[in-house]
């Protein structure tokens, strides 16, 4: 019995990596559409994109765009091109918000995540938010971030590209051209559209 217990203990599976708690940026991103001017401009049916840092205006802020969705005839989800955008601070203050004119425009389906569970997706999204928050600190410092910093930027760019919808690549670049220019100079890459 002792041997069996010992064997069982050795064969014990490692617990899964803990799901990261929501970072301040993730929490702020989730509620931005209900704050300030966004509360009356951005429908709750629109999803916020991943936030991207920007120094436009002289201080660090984060920028998101919003996009709606609908069901196709085969009941799959169809997402739209950006329909609104906002700037906000890490403590949740909305600096500006606007709904973009024009009818919703469907984008091609991103099938990269079909094999992942929802928990895996949300976990990866949480990690990415935390990474954006950390990279934003490097970006806002204005200093040389060194080789370690550049390696982090490169890793962040890969993770971002892996999760952000390629059909939204141009929109992400337009959100914060200053940040992506900095990222490209520091070992990273701006989002590229789907080939």
């Amino acid at each position, binding site marked *: 019995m002792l041997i069996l217990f010992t064997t069982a203990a050795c064969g014990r599976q490692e617990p899964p990596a803990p799901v990261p708690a929501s970072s301040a940026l993730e929490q702020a991103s*989730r*509620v931005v559409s209900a704050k300030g*001017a966004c509360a009356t401009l951005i429908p*709750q*049916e629109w999803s916020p994109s991943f936030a991207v840092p920007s120094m436009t205006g002289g201080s660090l802020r984060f920028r998101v765009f919003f996009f709606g969705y609908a069901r196709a005839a085969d009941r799959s989800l169809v997402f739209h091109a950006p329909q609104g955008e906002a700037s906000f601070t890490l403590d949740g203050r909305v600096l500006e918000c606007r709904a973009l*004119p024009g009818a919703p425009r469907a984008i091609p389906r991103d099938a990269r995540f079909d094999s992942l569970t929802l928990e895996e997706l949300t976990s990866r999204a949480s990690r990415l938010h935390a990474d954006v928050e950390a990279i934003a600190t490097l970006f806002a410092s204005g200093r040389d971030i060194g080789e370690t910093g550049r390696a982090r930027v490169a890793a962040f760019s890969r993770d971002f590209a892996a999760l952000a919808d390629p059909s939204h690549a141009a929109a992400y670049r337009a959100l914060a051209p200053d940040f992506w220019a900095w990222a490209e100079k520091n070992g990273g890459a701006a989002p590229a559209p789907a080939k």
Partner: protein
Amino acid sequence: MTRFRLLALVLLIGAAPPGTASTGDSIVSAAKAFLKTSCVAAKQSCVEATAIHDGYLAALKDADACAEKACPLPAVHAIIERDRELDAREHALPPEARAAGSTRPFLRLSLLVVGRSAAALALADPKAEAPAYWNPSVEAPKMVELICVKYAALCAGARGLLRETSDLHADAAACEKEPCRFAVQEELAIAAERASGDYMALSTKVDTYTLPIFSVINQAVERVGKLLARTSAAKLAELEKGEAALLAGVAALEKNPGVASAAQIEALNARGAQLIGLYRDASNSSDRTQNMLIGDAGTARMRERVNAAAGRLASARARLMALKAARGFGGPDATDAAAVGTIRPASASSGAGLGLTLVGGGESRSQAPRPVLIDRRSIPKPPPTDPNAPPILEGDPGYLDLLRNVRSKDSLRKADALRRLGLTKTFGDPSGRAGLVHTQRAPDTCAIVAQQGVLMALKLLPLGDPVKLEAQLAEEARSRGFYREGTPDAYTGSLLVDRGVIVTKHNDVPLSTLDAAVRRGGMIIASVDARHLWGDKAPKALGHAIMITGAEVGRFNDETLGYYINDSGSLVLGAGRFVPIEQFKKAWEGLTKTFAEVH
């Protein structure tokens, strides 16, 4: 004006479409021809108009000369300054003296001057900046003329936008001078939001400099916002005062309930119904000003006060109902129109096809009365004390299976077992409310359908095709500014508030606040991340609104096991679907944590 702006103007005027190479000549001759018209239309301004016209031509001549051969920088600055002074003088001319129809021929001369001045500035010193200048009320019409020169197809829209903005300013000024009715102020707010949206649409289609146009619109928005905020504050103060008197009256009756008469109770009810009108105006205006007065922390505090007032109104109403029942004048089931009463006399309006009494809104901006739909019919019945709920899981498990399932890791199975064993209590009215939902027809009407469900529960909608009613309500919400390809969080429940239903709104609140509201038993409209309800896999949240119709709570440990929801957007219609609390928590925390509670 910055160098960038000047050069932009140069490029844009210079880059006129093919076939318009003589744009400059035609502008000059049109201005000359207009001068004659101006002098006939406004004799008293003829001298000034002539001086302005001649002034622009002189400035143009000097700018041309400096664009050909470099002039000293001060000379170029002086030309720019002359142009600005002429713009201000043109702006001050009577409308008939400065506009031919909608065209401003003198401003077009100014565009030529600016263009040539930019070239002259670049020649004089490529690094030089023009002197700073910012007067959007003067520059905005000039920028509209630039759009008209470059984008003929957009000209009418740009002019219409400027005219609408000018009307907004005039109407706001009139309301500042002499208080105007709330209905008029609300129409101004809707028009101001519309103007902002129209500007966004215009600015994406042109590559000219449009900031002055945006600025005058913004000034109008802020002006109307301040007006609305002042009115909102005044209505809220009046409401709070009225509530204090109402609650004092209710308390007085409660001290001696045995002698409270039906007339006394009805009088207080009628007073409460009158106060609902104030509540409605305060609630709607506090929501609208969130966008109009950006950065104003007072708007957030206003919502807290509105919520508190709503709570007091609902409490007074509930206490009066209890008094009425205690005195045997008619219990909760006997509540009827008299309990709410009328807020304003009904007019013989068409009822918008929704079978409701429309109340005239008094004079309005467009001179047509705005229909105001007021709740005349019923107030929410309290939820049943021992409500039924749809099955959590289908089937008929045996007793031993139930005992096993009580410890199941599957939270649905566990909740189902606990309920079947009588170890839980139900809050709200999940079964009674399950019929209030239908599959939404449009992709973005979830909040509309949720509100439709509330209106059906309150018998404020006629019987009919729910899809048609959904479309009608969406159109109504759109006309009120509450809906545009979806419902912004601030306007969830606003269709209900418009009808005098008491609604409190909360955003970015913890689950415990929502839980307390659900346990009060009323209908709740909540924003959720639908991925966690539908199982759809997407890296970003799917924003959605659902109605929470009830809750299942452990009878002995008082822990919430889950909520019953009506979900109009799921592939299989969610009518009284049970969602375990851990699953709901993910859906709740994945989005804005916003809900509206119907009282």
